[in-house]
């Protein structure tokens, strides 16, 4: 058979078509659940829980309005007596016999996610860059053991780690504070940052720095003016990985925060409407929450392999 003789190196056109069709089919099936959630975000409450499930529906922003507001149900008479609605969302809510009572907690939760995410990313990348540079350029005693220790801390079961952290934070008054979460996420992320950045810095030829040293730069100047500019892409990729981790993290957040410092992942499942989960609002929150991740994944495409293997593989 001539087709069988085709190796992986030069796949025959027929193999390519078959492979392509199969992969595309898998990709479409894989993306369907996500598309369903995005669609649900634009459904009305009744469309979201319709049977059979609705594929074609009248899009509405109700889910998003519900996500951002707290509403109370009123009698039609009461609503009729109110002054005319000022905004489109007031109008939308009143059509459902409700009145907006105030903003929901989603904005503070989103803010927490941002502050904790960026705070821990900045710290982890800062500490990670220094440590990675040292591991890459200097001879450090027991370097391999230290690197293993650093990585092993990331692999620990979060629920197990949370038990002593919970006790420690109670003593230090760090429970349910942003600072406490930033420190915790920094500790988890710094291990990834060290490993990833060591890989990136290893790739920068040493001669550049050595030339700078001969020119009279100090080590620190050489680091700042020669190494860091070369490592910018690596640092950015590392930062995005750290940010994604903090953004997505759930176990620590649900066990160690309850209000003040709560982030989005433990908040989203508990967006409740009348009678159970308010699915359009949950879907709207999920959509807003996931969009940055999708963008980052596309941005990071070339570095994904590196990120998931702690910098060991680079294609």
């Amino acid at each position: 058979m001539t087709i069988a003789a085709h190796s992986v190196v030069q796949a025959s056109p027929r193999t390519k078509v078959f492979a392509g069709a199969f992969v595309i089919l898998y990709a479409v099936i894989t993306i369907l659940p996500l598309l369903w959630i995005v669609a649900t975000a634009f459904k009305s409450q009744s469309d979201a829980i319709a049977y059979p499930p609705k594929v074609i529906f009248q899009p509405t922003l109700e889910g998003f309005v519900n996500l951002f507001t707290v509403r109370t149900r009123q009698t039609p008479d009461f609503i009729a007596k109110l002054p005319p609605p000022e905004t489109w969302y007031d109008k939308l809510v009143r059509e459902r016999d409700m009145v907006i009572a105030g903003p929901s907690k989603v904005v503070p939760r989103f803010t927490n996610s941002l502050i904790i995410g960026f705070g821990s990313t900045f710290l982890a990348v800062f500490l990670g860059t220094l440590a990675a540079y040292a591991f890459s350029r200097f001879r450090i005693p027991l370097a391999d053991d230290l690197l293993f220790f650093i990585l092993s801390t990331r692999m620990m079961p979060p629920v197990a780690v949370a038990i002593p952290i919970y006790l420690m934070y109670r003593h230090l008054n760090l429970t349910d504070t942003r600072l406490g979460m930033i420190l915790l996420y920094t500790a988890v992320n710094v291990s990834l940052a060290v490993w990833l950045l060591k890989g990136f810095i290893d790739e920068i030829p040493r001669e550049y720095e050595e030339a700078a040293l001969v020119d009279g730069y100090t080590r620190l100047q050489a680091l700042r003016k020669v190494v860091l500019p070369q490592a910018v892409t690596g640092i950015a990729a590392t930062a995005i990985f750290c940010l994604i981790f903090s953004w997505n993290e759930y176990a620590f957040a649900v066990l160690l925060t309850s209000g003040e410092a709560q982030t989005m992942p433990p908040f989203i499942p508990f967006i409740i409407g009348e009678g159970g989960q308010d699915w359009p609002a949950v879907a709207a929150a999920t959509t807003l929450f996931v969009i940055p991740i999708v963008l980052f994944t596309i941005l990071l495409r070339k570095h994904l392999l590196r990120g998931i293997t702690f910098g060991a593989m680079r294609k």
Partner: protein
Amino acid sequence: MTTITQPDDAAISRIPSQTDSRSVLRTRGLSDRTIAWLFVAPTIALLLAINIFPLIWMIRLSFTSLNLSMSYLPLRVVGLDNLSDILTDEDVWLRLQTTARFVISSVTLQVIVGFGLALLINRQFRGHSFWTTIILLPMMLSPAVVGNFWTLLFQPQIGPFNYMISLFTGVPPSSFSMTGEVGLAPWTIVLVDTWMWAPYVMLICLAGLRSIPDYIYEAAEVDRASAWRQFWSITLPMTVPFLMLAVLFRAIENFKMFDMVNLLTSGGPGSTTELVSITLKRAAFEKWRTGYSSALAIILFVTVFGAANIYVKLLNRVKQR
């Protein structure tokens, strides 16, 4: 790296006036050794404070009877009682079995799907990189958010999953519940985990496949080896180290799985999907049996630490390729 720097050193030492330039460099600014320690110390200090100190504290607690919901009770030192309680508790063994079944079936499925996809994508059909990115999306999402939205998809009446199944098989959609039935729930968490993580295995396998030099296949072609033969004697053996890496990492991650399953089934129905992390969370944060749960946490730590050790060794070996 070292081979590149050596000519440099040689060049410097050849110039008489600069023979001691390296010691001059060292005196300007901080010494290399000082910098090395200054740079590594903060990271180590942070990890000691956030990971190691609490860990040691937890080891101490595991020998006590501490219960946070009854902290008025005097703290008793119970020695190894917690440990023996856990090891003789049939429930804990059942949860460990549930966890083992989950780890084995999900990792197996992910290897089959992931490796299969990698083989297909490696055919480099047109547009493969776009579709690869789409396939990779699930693994970047928050497991908690994923677990939460799959509960909507799995709703017996309103969820599209049951509806699709009924379209293809004719089974009425409300006649079964993926998250509510003892027979189905363990497979449901495997399914969602595979949806999320098969791309991970795929990405690593793809790197393995791309590391095989073309000339090996060309040589096999010259020897008229069949495609089947080429797969068994070239492709598979050369991808195995990568596959092992993916398997070990997924096994570690799934062994400590908490977030996705907690939101999808929260261990139910009954305790059919109660993984050991969920048991631990209940003991520590619902029953507040801190002494007992510290001991259980240490058992999990030791297991993961051992697996992580092997993982890093493998990682370094693959890196050298």
